[in-house]
């Protein structure tokens, strides 16, 4: 059984918030065409996952969740760096960063 008493609010609230943030991120990636917004949306999804890690870590008294949260932050930073670099390179070559127009890998 999770140690719900250790949490300031019930676990279901963390899960619900995380789901909401995650779906906002998904919507941002799928619906927006600006790569910067898309990167930010991905960041939202990372953080939704992080929130779950921490909530469950506290609930189960298991520090692996904390460790994974740090790992996720690291990977997210690296991902953002690569993503921004791609955006900069694409912008330099075509003065336009609409992802729908960057489709030269079409088969």
């Amino acid at each position: 059984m999770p140690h719900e008493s250790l949490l300031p609010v019930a676990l279901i609230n963390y899960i619900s918030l995380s789901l909401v943030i995650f779906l906002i991120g998904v919507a941002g990636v799928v619906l927006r065409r600006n790569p910067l917004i898309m990167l930010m949306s991905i960041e939202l999804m990372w953080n939704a996952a992080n929130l779950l890690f921490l909530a469950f870590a506290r609930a189960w008294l298991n520090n692996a969740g904390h460790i994974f949260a740090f790992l996720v932050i690291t990977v997210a930073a690296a991902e953002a760096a690569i993503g921004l670099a791609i955006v900069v390179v694409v912008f330099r070559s075509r003065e336009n960063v609409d992802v729908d127009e960057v489709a030269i890998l079409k088969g």
Partner: protein
Amino acid sequence: MSLDVHQMGIPGSYPALFVIWLLPLAGAIACWAFGPQLKRYAGVLGSAVIGAAFIAALVSWNIATQDSGSQLGAEQHLFTWLQGFDFGLLLDPLSLIWVLIITGVGFLIHLYSVGYMWNDNAIARFFAYMNFFVFAMLTLVLSDNFVGLLVGWGLVGLASYFLIGFWFFKPSAVAAARKAFVLNVVGDVGIMFAIFIMIAKVGSVRFADVFANPHALDPWLFWTCVFLFIGAAAKSAQLPLHTWLPDAMEGPTPVSALIHAATMVTAGVYLVARCAPLWLASHEAQILVGTVGALTALAGALLGIAQWDIKRILAYSTMSQIGYMIMGVGVGAFSAGVAHFFTHAFFKACLFLGSGIIIHELSDEQDIRLMGGMRKRTPVAFWSMLSAVLAISGAPFFSGYFSKDQVIYGDIEHGDLWLWAIGLLTAGITAYYMFRLFFVTFMGTYRGDLKPADVGIETEVAASTAAIKHETSEPHAEDHTHAPAWLMAVPVAILGFFSFAAGYVMLPGNSPWAHFFAHSFPLERLPASTISEGVTTGIAIVMLIIGAGIAYWRYATPEALQNAPERLKRESETLPAILVRLFYWDDVIDWLFVKPSQKLGDFFGQWFDPHFVDGVVREVVFSNRFLGTVVRSFQTGLLRAYALIIVFGAACFAVYYALEGAMR
């Protein structure tokens, strides 16, 4: 049939056999590896190793004839190939005779070649091939089993191919080499089939094991003989596989003398003589071989009548004479057939080398219509070839007289009246065409300065053969010197002498020859023949006189010599087409095998390959392209589409686990 035959050699260690066998190989490798350094000395080296091998063979005389009462000769174990299949060398009287001729006559021909090839840049290559040939031939005759014999059999075919095509810049030489190789391989396959039967029925390929009980091969004994004889017929230019031999004359003349007259083409005679126990056990096979031999003798002689190229006349005469040998060993007169091989090696090598001197003297002219009067220009060739012509025609007291009479008498002794008659008829024809060659070449006046058309040479090709050869031959060595004349004259003179003298070892009665082969061949108890040897000899001499007389009357009377060009022209125009076209045999083979093969090739090249083989390849291409089109449609290049797909997938997982949780 007497069982007084000793087939198996006495096992032991005989270093001399290795010397005989491997010296020529060492010479070939040396000539091949150091050719550019050796230049003409390759000829000296090549001749020296053959001479040394000849001396080693003479020294081995005693071990070849040693007789323990049941075993004869020397057998040297080499190695075990597979369990129960041993390889070894066998030197008994039969193989010794062949070894002596191969190395002895071979040495003289090598010596002659030094002079003949003096100004050819590829002289080292020539001697490498010649030495390799001798090695291959020795492998053939020294082997103590059928597989080793087949190895040698194939290698001599290869050496023959190399040497016929030695002047590879001549398309005709290349074609002739290819033809010879292909026809010889037909024979190789025949022997291979015979070996299969032996392995299946006897379980061994050693001569000693197979000959111990020929009837172990039943019911395949006859077919074993037939397959062996297919090999013999291909190698020895017997009907119907003879057509390669005349074409083989494209090679240098010493090659014709060594390979296509004295040694390789008699391998078939060796094979039949070696397998005497098999033949004696299968009377049908004997009839087959004897008949083929007789027909070949007759056909070769008939074709020899209609030829004008000096080497082709000799080629057909070789075919005819080998027909005699095959007839001899076929009817069971083994020692007579081998005797004819022995004398033939001398007189035919002499004829070829003598004609080589003439060809050399006339700058590569080979048409006898453009010769004439060579008696004064090439006296050594004249006297030597006179001896050889008398020998091949069977003139009394010359070598061929003794051996050919033995063969012909052997026929009637074994009760084959027809073969006897054919043998005598052929003897007459032989005398005619050999004296025709001799008179047209040596008598009268030189005709080489006449226009080719004046002596009846029709085709442009034939007339300009010599010219083409000169234009296309390899550039001559810069120091264009003449070889010492004795290099070519001495071997021819020695061979000319033996053409006369070689027969005296085989005088009727208790001759050294009969003594030598006393235990090599099974003796048959024969009923007294219907026609005595004296009568046979008498008829043969009459046939010789008739044949030579007709030749004299047509070519050598003072009146004929006076009008030689006109007469030759008239003869060229009136020769029967069937002889000029060689019994249409080349056309028949062309129609039966070559044309269908070409058609088959066309079918595969123009239909099967593009439509079937290529079709399979195209189908693979088509399927892959279709699959690619399908898969490509997913690759839109739209980042958000990919994202949506990922989301969809993730959603599927979520739904799956949600449902699974709900079910639990």
